[in-house]
C-alpha cells in the first residue's frame, strides 16, 4: 500500500514536489430543510393564514446531515467513503459536486467534480443510443469526439451482450443496465474529480471488475476518485484511503486497511 501511494504521489506532484490538492473540504456543515414534514396543518386554510400572517411554514424541519467535516484530497488518490445508512456519505458528495449549499464552511475544488449517483437518471424516454450521444455532448464533448467514442462506451457498458438494447428507450432497462450505461457515459470523459455513489452496486460482478479497472485508469490520469460503497471488498480493491462518516461526523481518515478494520470491528465483523 505504502509503495503504491508513493508511486502515485510521484506522478501527481507539481514542480516543487508538493502533492496537488483537488478537493479541499473546510469545516463543512450541511443542513437539509424538509418542507411538508411534521403532522397536520397542511390544509388550504392553514396555508392561507400562514401567508397572510407572513409566518414561515411550521412544517419545515431541519436535518443536520453533516457536522463539521474537513479533509483534503489529492491528485491520483482514490478515496473510499464508508459509514452506515444515513451517515451523510451521499450528502457530502453532493455538496462537493456543488449540488447542495453548505450551511457553514467552504468546499474548494479543481474544475467541476462529476457525481455519479445510483438515482442519476438521464432521459428515460429516449433510447440508450440518444442518451450516450446527448450525455457526451452535455459533458462538453465535441460532436466528432462523441461519435468516435460511441462504440467503446457501448462496449464498455455491455448493454449489447444480451441483444439489441441500445436502441430501446432507457425506461425499459433494468436498474443494473441503466446504471452500467450511466457509468460508461460518465467514465468516457477525463475527470479531475469523479465521485461514484454506489452506482456500481447494481452492476454484475464482471462489470464491477471492469469499472474498478477504469477507476484505476482515471486515477493514473491524475484524477481523484471518490467511491461510496457498502462493499468493503470493492473499496479494498480500489482505494488506498478511506473516510469513515458516522452521524455526520468524520470518525476516521486514514489508510484503507486501518479504517476498514476499525469499521468492521464497529459493525460487528463482516
Amino acid at each position, binding site marked *: 500500500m505504502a509503495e503504491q501511494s508513493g508511486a502515485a504521489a510521484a506522478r501527481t506532484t507539481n514542480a516543487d514536489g508538493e502533492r496537488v490538492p483537488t*478537493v479541499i473540504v473546510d469545516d463543512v456543515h450541511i443542513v437539509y430543510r424538509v418542507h411538508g414534514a411534521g403532522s397536520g396543518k397542511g390544509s388550504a386554510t392553514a396555508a392561507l393564514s400562514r401567508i397572510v400572517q407572513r409566518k414561515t411554514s411550521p412544517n419545515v424541519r431541519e436535518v443536520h446531515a453533516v457536522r463539521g467535516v474537513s479533509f483534503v484530497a489529492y491528485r491520483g488518490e482514490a478515496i473510499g467513503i464508508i459509514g452506515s445508512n444515513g451517515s451523510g456519505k451521499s450528502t457530502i458528495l453532493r455538496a462537493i459536486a*456543488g449540488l447542495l449549499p453548505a450551511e457553514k464552511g467552504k468546499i474548494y*475544488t479543481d474544475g467541476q467534480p462529476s457525481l455519479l449517483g445510483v438515482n442519476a437518471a438521464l432521459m428515460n424516454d429516449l433510447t440508450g443510443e440518444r442518451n450516450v450521444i*446527448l450525455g457526451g455532448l452535455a459533458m462538453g464533448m465535441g460532436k466528432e469526439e462523441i461519435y468516435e467514442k460511441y462504440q467503446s462506451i457501448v462496449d464498455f457498458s455491455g448493454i449489447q451482450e444480451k441483444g439489441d438494447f441500445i436502441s430501446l428507450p432507457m425506461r425499459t432497462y433494468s436498474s443494473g443496465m441503466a446504471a452500467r450505461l450511466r457509468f460508461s457515459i460518465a467514465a468516457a470523459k477525463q475527470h479531475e474529480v469523479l465521485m461514484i455513489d454506489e452506482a456500481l452496486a447494481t452492476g454484475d460482478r464482471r462489470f464491477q471488475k471492469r469499472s474498478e479497472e477504469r477507476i484505476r485508469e482515471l486515477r493514473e490520469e491524475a484524477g481523484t476518485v471518490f467511491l461510496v460503497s457498502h462493499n468493503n471488498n470493492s473499496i479494498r480493491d480500489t482505494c488506498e484511503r478511506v473516510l469513515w462518516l458516522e452521524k455526520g461526523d468524520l470518525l476516521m481518515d486514514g489508510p484503507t486497511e486501518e479504517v476498514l478494520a476499525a469499521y468492521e470491528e464497529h459493525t460487528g465483523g463482516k
Partner: protein
Amino acid sequence: MSTVSDTTHQSAVAVSTRPAPLPGDGLSPAELAAKHGLSVSGARPPLPDYVRQLWGRRHFIVAYSVARLTAQYTNARLGQIWNVLTPMLNAAVYYLIFGVLMNSKRGIDNYIAYLVIGVFVFNFTQSAILAGTRAISDNLGLIRALHFPRACLPISITLIQLQQLLYSLIVLVSIVLMTGETVGMGWLLIIPALLLQCVFNIGCAMFVARIGSEVTDVAQLMPFLLRTWMYLSGVMYSITTVKSHLPGVFGVMLELNPAAVYIDLMRYSLMSSFTSSQLPHHVWFAALAWSAIAGIGGFVFFWKAEERYGRG
C-alpha cells in the same frame, strides 16, 4: 452502538490520521485553495464565461431538442402525424367557435387565415412559456447527473416549440393558400418575424424557468395568465376595431404588447388583405425591442441563479 466503542474510535482518529486533517505547510484551507487555483464548488461562472460555455454546448442544445421532439409521440399510434394533426384540430376548434358560432369576423377579410395565424403564432409563445416553467423541475435528474450550463434547457425547450411551429406552418400555409392568398415576396418577412419572436420566447422561457424553479405554484397559475394574455392580444378579433372605443393609452398598450406585435407581423407577411395601414406605428422597432429586452433580460435573470438550480 455503545458510547464506549464510539469513544475508542474517537481516540483512534488521533493516532491513525495519516494526512493531518488540513496539511500543507501550515496554510489555511483558503490559502491552500488559492495557491493551487481551486475554486469554490458550485459557484456561478462570470457572465462572459457562461456565454462561452453555452456556445460550447450548442450541439447539445440542438440534439436535445430534436431528440425530445421525436420522443414526444412515440407512445401514440399515429406517431409524428400528431405534429401536424394537433395544430389542424386547434385551428378547427377556434374556427368553429369564433368564426361560425360567435361570428366575430366583423369586417375582417379572410377571417380563417386571420384567425389561424393568430392562433399558431400565439401558441408558439404560449407553449414556450408553459414548457419553460417546468424546464428545471422536469429535468432534475439530468441537472443532478451532469454538469452543463442550465440555460441549455430553456433554450432547447423553445427550440422544440419552434420545430412544432414549423410543422404548424405547413398546415398554416396550406390554409392560407386555400383561402385565396397568393405567394409573394412579402412572405420572406416570415423569417425575421419568426427569428425575433424566437429570441423573445427564449428570454421569456428563461425568465419563467427561474421563477418556476423557485416557486412551484407558478406552474398552476401560468395557464390563466397566458389565457388572459391571449384574449388581450387580438388573436380572434382585430385590435384596430376594438381600439376605437378604448381610451388612447389602452389601445396603444394592446397594440404594442409583444404577442400582438408578432401576430400582426405574421399576418402582414402572409395576407394580402392585411395592409401596412393596419400595423401599429414602428412595429418592426417594437418587435426588435421586445426581443432584445426579453432575450437579454431573461438570460441575465436566469444566469443570476445558475448555482441554485437542482439544489435541495
